[in-house]
């Protein structure tokens, strides 16, 4: 039993190790800084150069305890946020995470951050593939 568990674990580790970065291009990766402990939003564009459909399923960062895929919705003049399980990317498709739409919600920062700094964020895809992207921290009044 122990051995089976160990080999399963080894297999999992090997799979993670084998999963290279997917063929995607990231643009304009940035975080809008907010003071104190407030959650912040991360924005970027992602273009798939893969030949098969991709799914962005999550994100993580050593600078935050929690990073979630979110989307803001405007319905009847009311804004609200919803959690997004995944974002589909067809071959050649670009999806833009931008103010008022898809965004990363970066919660519970582990250390103080200031505009001008850079924070690594790891994007996670459906097949277990990951990609580390540097996000620059911009001022609250940035676009």
């Amino acid at each position, binding site marked *: 039993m122990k051995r089976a568990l160990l080999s399963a674990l080894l297999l999992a580790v090997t799979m993670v190790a084998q999963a290279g970065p997917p063929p995607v291009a990231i643009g304009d990766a940035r975080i*809008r*800084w*907010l*003071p*104190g402990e*407030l*959650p*912040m*939003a991360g924005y970027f564009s992602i273009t798939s150069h893969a030949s098969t459909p991709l799914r962005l399923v999550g994100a993580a960062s050593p600078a935050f305890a*929690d990073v979630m895929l*979110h989307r*803001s919705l*405007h319905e009847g*003049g*009311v*804004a*609200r*946020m919803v959690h997004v399980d995944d974002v589909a990317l067809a071959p050649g498709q670009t999806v833009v995470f931008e*103010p*008022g739409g898809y*965004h990363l*919600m*970066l*919660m*519970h920062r582990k250390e103080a951050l200031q505009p001008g700094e850079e924070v690594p964020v790891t994007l996670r895809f459906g097949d277990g593939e990951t990609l580390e992207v540097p996000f620059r921290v911009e*001022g*609250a*009044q*940035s*676009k």
Partner: protein
Amino acid sequence: MTRARAAVDRAAGVCFGALLLMGLLAGCGRSAPPWGLRDITGLMPPLDFSLTEASDGATVHGKDFRGYVVLLYFGYTHCPDVCPTTLSRLSRAVAALGPQAEQVRILFVSVDPARDTLAQLKTYGAAFGPQVVGLRGSQDAIKALTKRYRVSYGYGKPDAHGDYEVSHSSAVYVFDREGDVRLLADATAESPVITGDLRRLLAE
């Protein structure tokens, strides 16, 4: 009626139509050009409230802002996307006014007083510029104010950390120096459009 007479009548009709059109155009020329934002003059009551100002803890009323052009927006500080995006757009619009920015105030009323302490609102407002005034009130005070301006808000279910989301109107109301409601900016209003309208209100 002869054919010639009919032609004269038609010509007269065309001339009359042209004159009427010119008159209408001249009339339009005399009236003010349309606003970039939505004109809601007279559709909402004048600016009035009693809330606590985050910067110094003082009680402030709507009438304290007479003489300023006021942008009124409802939100909450734990809002990472929509509120900062709106506040950043508004503060950039106000900053573009140059020295006249001093005659404008952006009132950010928290609809989440349970989490938004005065200190929190103060640092949050300051991050968006000197014209932003954070305002906090009891649930009763906020309910009264949101009812007055037909603004809705609601709270989502708390997660394991006790974090919750707040849905809220994306509307920004613009009041003139007299405290009368004039314009409505929705979530799509761009900074240059807002700046143009603010400049006109300031010139009144």
